[in-house]
């Protein structure tokens, strides 16, 4: 990752690292060790990524209470590794649980940008899927997918906590199928997963 903005004062042997890096990479590829490591490590990292999905502690409207109920003791989402963090840097899933008004459009895009790759977006509830009961309003965007690429849609107003946990299950199935690739590298043919219609 040769980012030119580095002002490391330490020894910066970018050129040497690049050369050595390429040579060893070629050697590993030739000896097929890269495949072995790639496949085995890929399985372990895929397991790690899908078993610990940290959603962002972001409550917009009513679905936020269902998100809290899912985190509480009756529906306990933490059984599946869902642990709510409040800083976007430490989250993988942006759980959008309410209508996106024009005023909140660019803060939520900034939140999405702050999250490190690989990241996913779950649109929870009618308001984030299509504006919900407020689709005619002058101040509401018709769905989060107008501004953020969405991976899993959970219909319902509000969806029951079981549906939210099933949404996380759908996301885990997606990760096991496609792998934890960064959000911009995902194949275009990815049809949105709508729960309950298959």
């Amino acid at each position, binding site marked *: 990752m040769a980012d030119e903005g580095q002002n490391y004062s330490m020894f910066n042997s970018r050129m040497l690292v690049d050369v050595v890096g390429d040579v060893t990479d070629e050697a590993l590829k030739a000896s097929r060790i890269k495949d072995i490591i790639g496949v085995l490590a890929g399985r372990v990292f895929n397991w790690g990524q899908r078993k610990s999905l940290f959603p962002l502690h972001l*409550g917009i*409207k*009513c679905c*936020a209470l269902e998100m809290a109920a899912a985190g509480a*003791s009756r529906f306990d989402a933490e059984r599946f590794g869902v642990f709510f963090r409040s800083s976007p840097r430490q989250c993988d899933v942006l759980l959008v649980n309410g209508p996106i008004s024009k005023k*909140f459009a660019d*803060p939520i895009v900034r939140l999405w940008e702050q999250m490190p790759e690989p990241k996913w977006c779950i649109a929870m509830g009618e308001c984030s899927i299509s504006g919900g009961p407020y689709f005619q309003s002058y101040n509401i965007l018709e769905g989060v997918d107008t501004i953020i690429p969405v991976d899993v849609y959970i219909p319902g*107003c509000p969806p029951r906590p079981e549906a939210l946990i099933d949404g996380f299950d759908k996301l885990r199935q997606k990760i096991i199928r496609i792998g934890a690739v960064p959000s911009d590298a995902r194949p275009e043919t990815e049809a949105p997963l709508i729960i309950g219609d298959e």
Partner: protein
Amino acid sequence: MAEMWISMGPQHPMTHGLWTLKVKVDGETVVDTEPDLGYIHRGVEKICEARDFTQITTYCDRLCYASANTWSHSYIYAAEDLLEVEVPERAEYIRLMAIEIQRIASHLMWLGAYGPDIGNLSVMVWCLREREMMMDLLQELGGSRMHYNFPRVGGVKRDLPHGFAQRARAKLKLFLNRIQEYEALFDESTVFLVRSQGVGYAKPEEMVNHGVTGPNLRAGGVNYDIRWAHPYSVYSELDWEPPVERSSIKGADCYDRYRVRVEEMRVSASLALQALDKMPGGADTHHEPGDPMILAKAPARAPEGTTGAHHFEDSRGESMFYIAGGGESRGKQPYRVSIRSPIFITIPFAAKCMIGYKVADIPAIMGSFDPCIGETDR
């Protein structure tokens, strides 16, 4: 340390919802605050002008999502005033019970959110466990977990389901002795007392002038309550007393607001139990949906020039609906619906209360006023 503006941004664990509090901080003490609302403004008043009277109840459920029933009832009473409908006695008792159970669920949601604000996570999970009990009861009445669309103009569409009274009594009695668990976790922990007593003072006269009502006002030692000042429903038939807290000299602080809400949960539980006992026709009889015992015939159109207004004691303060009739499609839709949100008026007051306290007190003070941003931004 030079004074600097911190913006406790739209996404922040302290805000129970989406709003920004810009705080000018000098070191650790708060010098000036400025709230910025409107992040989930969705123009409900404009949308209601294109809906007819029964469709609007769904929007009023979704105003304050922690206490959906109280808000839909607040609208229904205003609509009944507009359409001049006489509500049968049994429907009033069913409504009162539904409102009081919803008030308990709303206060439990507040207590669950107030715990993590001051740092204790297990309170949230305990309170949500009890709230699930209350939501089960309301789910039997309304059909879904959070937004019930339960009242109709002129009464209640469905009567109590079979065996509801017995289940409700069992759950409410179990809840009454679960409150001791929360009080043990809060009142007997010196850390909570030190964190909440003496923080966020507010005097009753100042609160009334600022438009703050409800539990926040009663915490100041004044027993003003819309349910007896501007009576509605059948509160006059039941034996109850609005809980009042003996505050400190300088006014009501976070500890008083916490005490008042815990007492109010007990009063609401006893009100719901009394409503079940005194239900005309008995709580175990079951009428068919739409039976005149529970639902009166209501006109669908409001002619031009008629108005309806109702002040309602919501779990966060006084909520009010003012409806002007005579809208489109020959009066089937209202011309103008105006909604008063208690928290929309309380947040600027709470922001002023914080001046002089530490940064760490901001969630304690803001949390004690029980903000619910859904109703604030309408």
